[in-house]
């Protein structure tokens, strides 16, 4: 059982970080469909950065840059040029896929460069790690997982207790009100999207740097889209989104367990579980999900 929960947390970590970024973007009024591409770019940049510098920290910093780069494209086209948010996000994902695969091969002189780093080790927290049950589960985790958990609290405080967070949320509800209160809604949205990219990039670093130590084409495999569902289920609230991500992580861990148990259902059907569960949860929520009022609406400047 504790194995199962550990797996759930492990699978959920990249989702959680991406979700934190997604909340920033969507609360400011920009659909975060580009999360997939931001994560992928972050995953790639993390490996390259860590490999070039020999330092994992530099790798994480690079991952933020990688995610932010893709986010910049989304910010310019969707926010500044007012193109449709969803389609722009999709486009950014395609671009990220192409760029990462291309650069991976350019670095390797035509074939994918073979980088194999040691995945990040767990950092046990002295004292807390010895607690029964919770100890090994929550307090013996690799560093980026702690970052994800801390990030939740920081984001919650930021959104509800600071002027900047208030302005960000207001931009997603009524950009005109923000304008007349003295801020620039366009700038707020662009910054929110870029910040989203940086944080989602760290989520990508979890996949590549923390979990396997290498980068493979398209390694995010649609996780960014799953996070979109988590945002809705978690009602754009950091704690809710974290819970939703854990839930999806558990769903996938469950599916992996099922496979190893040799259930009579076909193995591919079993792999559908996370997606079907996500659909079922969204369908169950249906009418009660309430988006930020101005999300997706372009900002007109006089």
């Amino acid at each position, binding site marked *: 059982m504790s194995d199962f929960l550990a797996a759930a947390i492990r699978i959920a970590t990249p989702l959680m970080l991406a979700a934190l970024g997604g909340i920033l973007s969507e609360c400011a009024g920009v659909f975060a469909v580009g999360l997939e591409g931001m994560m992928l770019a972050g995953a790639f940049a993390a490996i390259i950065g860590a490999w070039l510098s020999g330092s994992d920290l530099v790798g994480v910093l690079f991952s933020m840059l990688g995610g932010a780069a893709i986010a910049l494209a989304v910010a310019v086209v969707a926010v500044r040029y007012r193109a449709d948010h969803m389609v722009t996000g999709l486009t950014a994902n395609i671009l990220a896929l192409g760029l990462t695969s291309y650069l991976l091969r350019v670095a390797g002189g035509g074939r994918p460069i073979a980088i194999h780093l040691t995945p990040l080790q767990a950092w046990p927290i002295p004292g807390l790690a010895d607690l029964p049950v919770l100890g090994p589960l929550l307090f013996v985790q690799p560093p980026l997982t702690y970052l994800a958990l801390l990030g939740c609290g920081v984001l919650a405080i930021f959104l509800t207790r600071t002027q900047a967070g208030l302005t960000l949320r207001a931009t997603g509800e009524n950009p005109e009100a923000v304008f007349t209160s003295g801020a620039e809604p366009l700038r707020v949205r662009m910054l929110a999207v870029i910040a989203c990219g940086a944080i989602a990039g760290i989520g990508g670093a979890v996949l590549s740097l923390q979990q396997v130590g290498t980068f493979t084409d398209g390694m995010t495999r649609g996780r960014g889209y799953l996070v979109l569902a988590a945002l809705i289920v978690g009602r754009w609230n950091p704690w809710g989104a974290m819970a939703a991500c854990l839930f999806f992580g558990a769903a996938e861990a469950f599916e992996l367990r099922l496979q190893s148990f040799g259930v009579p259902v076909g193995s591919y059907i079993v792999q559908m579980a996370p997606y079907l569960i996500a659909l079922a949860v969204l*369908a169950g929520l249906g009418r009660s999900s309430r988006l930020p009022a101005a999300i997706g609406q372009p900002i007109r400047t006089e």
Partner: protein
Amino acid sequence: MSEPTSSSPVAVPQQARRIGFRLHRGDHLFVRILIAVLLSMLCAGALVAVSGHDPVAAFVALVTGAVGSPHQIGAAFNRTTPYLLAGGGVAMCFRAGIINIGAEGQIAVGGMGTAAVALVWFDDLSAVSTVAALLGGAGAGALWAGLAAAIHLGRRVHEVLATLLLNFVALLLVQQVLAGPLGEFGAGFLQSPLLPRASWLPRISPFNAHVGFLIAVVAAALLSFTLWRTRFGFALRVAGHSRPAAAYAGFSLPLLTWSVMVLAGAVAGLAGGIEVLGLHRRLIEGFSLGFGFKAVTVALLGALEPLAIVPAALFVGLLEAGSLSMQRQIGVPSALVVVIEGLTMLFVLAATVRRL
């Protein structure tokens, strides 16, 4: 609510539009798209130069790889076909304001349907079995899209998420079916047995292109006609401009949504069937990977006009056909083509905002 007394901040075409085909737009829509394409090629050239290769040589290899020989041209047309069909269906959805990114799953399911019908149909008359198999594919795709639409309409799940999540399910479904009833034993990888000769699509020599491209062009023309000359197309366009206006006009928005999704699904399913019967002659796992996003690319490049999607799809098809030989000859990774597609789409989006 107050009436705007000043000029509208919304970009509107400068010239009146004619009712009917609008290949000549006063606001230089297609010129903008062309510029976007050129810009992205320039960026790609820069990327190639940065990686230490000669951009011009790469470009030449790309072009000769695409159109160098009849065989290669045929291969390009073959690649273009599913993009053209799926792009047309997606464009119709976008026109109605519905973002359908489920083409990948609908193509996969369509391929599955076609293979199933082809394997079961015992007719020796090739035309009949081909048509039946293709219809089976279209039907399967339509069903899959209808499912997404039902989830979207019935439970208010956003259509992007509904179509997207069902993509994953569709791909897994096809894999499961290939591991089971439709699979070929002892093949080593997931594929169906070779489909009966009678169902194969005829090929045009010396190009070695299958007739799917012609089917796709006819389909594009029919879609364009539907969009501009039928009441259904009019309703779609109204709904895409303004949902309250569509309700006021007496159109049923749920019915419109469902219909255009099913239409797009059928067209995508047909594309899947054509891939299976024309190109691979069997059902292979993952044969539709990436097609959904290609469909969106092509739809945007063609400014959501089914007839203009023909050259748009050709552009993408030629790019991809040429990229493999570019990789072989010059050493530039074929992933560059995906970068070009992504950049092109971004520039097109920025250049055509609110004009589509």
